[in-house]
């Protein structure tokens, strides 16, 4: 069911646009269309302008950026590890980045300089990927990788809980859910400036190796014999994932399953080669996360639903479908 690439990209961009518009339109305060248009053309009243430009706009931008990064990272990791279940949260990278961010925020390190927060988040991600390599690097079996990922994710989650409970700030422990399930509530442009550079650098590094990922279809030997420098490819992929996911998690917490769902949904519409799903996964991820973020605002609960709850409800069925289809291989 391959559709032409330009058509696919155009369709995904249209979806993303719809999600972005929805993100601007919906929020706790109802604003009439007339007021919104006035605010965007510069003639708006102070309230509408503040709400749209300082609250909803950064939130929308973060939904797009974080979603794109998670989708791209999932597609790249699946291509590199030749494993359709690989993605940052399954491998524990998101939670480890959360741990870095939590350490920065709640022990006062982030107050030293705004760059400390993303740097520690990236460091957390990097350490977890290095650990994953060490535990399951050489193994061809998808099972080993998933098990190693579970180990790391669990350790990082426990670390986050511990850090928040040990923190000198008594209110910190209440924020565990935000860090482990993710949220874009109350973000400002300051967070956009923290996340976007990391996402840009990470994204660039991941897109670089599309060809290498294709060559890996033939296995590591086959790919190297086609001229791929696997060592450099691995470094670029690890760095790209760590920097991009680290920056994203630093502002949004650990959001799971975007990197799992989107490549799976996009793959049947492409020629199924790993490089072909990279950009569509990024765009699709942006759309999906932004839609999820609109959903948490529309679903009326006392405390705003965490993003990770919505993505989990979407992601687990994908997991299960794959599990049932591939059951004989396990």
């Amino acid at each position, binding site marked *: 069911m391959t559709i032409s690439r330009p058509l696919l990209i155009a369709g995904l961009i249209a979806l993303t646009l719809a999600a972005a518009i929805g993100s601007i339109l919906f929020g706790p*305060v109802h604003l009439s269309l007339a007021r919104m248009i006035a605010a965007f053309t510069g003639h708006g009243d102070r309230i509408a302008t503040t709400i749209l430009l300082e609250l*909803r706009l950064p939130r929308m931008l973060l939904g797009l950026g974080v979603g794109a990064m998670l989708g791209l990272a999932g597609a790249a990791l699946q291509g590199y590890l030749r494993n359709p279940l690989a993605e940052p949260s399954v491998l524990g990278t998101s939670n480890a980045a959360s741990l870095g961010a939590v350490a920065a*925020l709640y022990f006062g390190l982030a107050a030293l300089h705004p760059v400390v927060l993303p740097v520690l988040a990236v460091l957390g991600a990097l350490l977890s990927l290095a650990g994953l390599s060490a535990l399951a690097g050489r193994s061809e079996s998808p099972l080993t990788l998933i098990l190693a990922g579970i180990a790391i994710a669990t350790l990082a989650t426990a670390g986050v809980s511990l850090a928040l409970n040990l923190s000198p700030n008594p*209110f*910190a422990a209440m*924020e565990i859910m935000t860090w482990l399930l993710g949220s874009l509530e*109350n973000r400002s442009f*300051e967070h956009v400036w923290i996340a976007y550079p990391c996402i840009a650098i990470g994204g660039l590094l991941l897109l670089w190796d599309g060809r290498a990922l294709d060559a890996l279809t033939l296995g590591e030997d086959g790919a190297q014999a086609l001229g791929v420098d696997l060592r450099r490819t691995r470094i670029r992929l690890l760095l790209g994932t760590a920097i991009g996911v680290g920056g994203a998690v630093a502002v949004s917490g650990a959001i799971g399953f975007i990197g799992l769902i989107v490549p799976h949904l996009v793959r049947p519409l492409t020629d199924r080669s790993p490089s072909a799903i990279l950009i569509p996964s990024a765009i699709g991820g942006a759309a999906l996360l932004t839609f999820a973020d609109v959903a948490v605002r529309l679903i009326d609960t006392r405390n*705003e639903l965490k993003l990770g709850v919505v993505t989990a409800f979407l992601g687990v069925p994908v997991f299960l479908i794959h599990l049932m289809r591939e059951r004989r291989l396990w």
Partner: protein
Amino acid sequence: MASRIRIAALGLPLLALGGAISWASTDAPTPPSAGKPKRIVSINLCADQLVLALADREQIAGVTRNATDAEMSGESAKARGLPVLKNSAEQILAIDPDLIIGMPASRSAPMRALKGHSYNLLDLETANTVDEIYVSIRQTAAAVGHPERGDALVARMQAQLAGIGRSGGGKVAAYYQRRGFMTGTGTLIDDLMRRMGLVNLAAKLGKPPLSQLSIEEMVAARPDYLIVESATDKVADQGTEMLHHPALAGIPRISIPQAWTVCGSPAYVDAARGMARQLARFQDRTHAR
């Protein structure tokens, strides 16, 4: 046959010993009017404030953990050096107090554990208005054996409060806490606001005593002032980060230490004075323009 007699012979003295012990450990309640209490224990932070303000230092046998925390306790200076209690019935048993003050005392967890014993208990009610504070002061003063101090304190507070004017001018204010929690009517904060002549945003929006308001809703409501706890002036977690969102930057802030408002205590005057002073400063600026 002989062994059974031996067991019975051992058992009887043991039973008698046990009976004697349990009889001895039941205290007879100390009659309240028999002199000033010498071992006062407070099991609640707000009770701490009153006890520290009204009793002699030698009378106090135990205060709560938070009493020495300057962030949460107005009388923290006085509390330094006094024995600190955890929420433990054992500690209370060991002290053998002749007065326990709580909010309340009788239904609190440590006292439920000590159900078999009877102590002198003073249950204070949560004070939500300044008049209720005066009632608590008088109750505590009487219980600790210094009723004249209670009257003096109340008189002093009334005089000081009379000197603080109503500078609010009917403007709207919102008490905004971490994570967007907002304090409503029927609370001490609300009482303070009305004393200042301010309208509580929660009252205007018809919200309950504690509710959550998103930043968008706060921006849309556009109160004239935000009243915040001074501890939230520094960003230490996501809850406080929210209070520093750029969208809220345009609203003037009045910052009051939590230690003055969390309990109904003499620090109410400090809170009122602090609010009045900051309000006056804002108004000067508006008039000066």
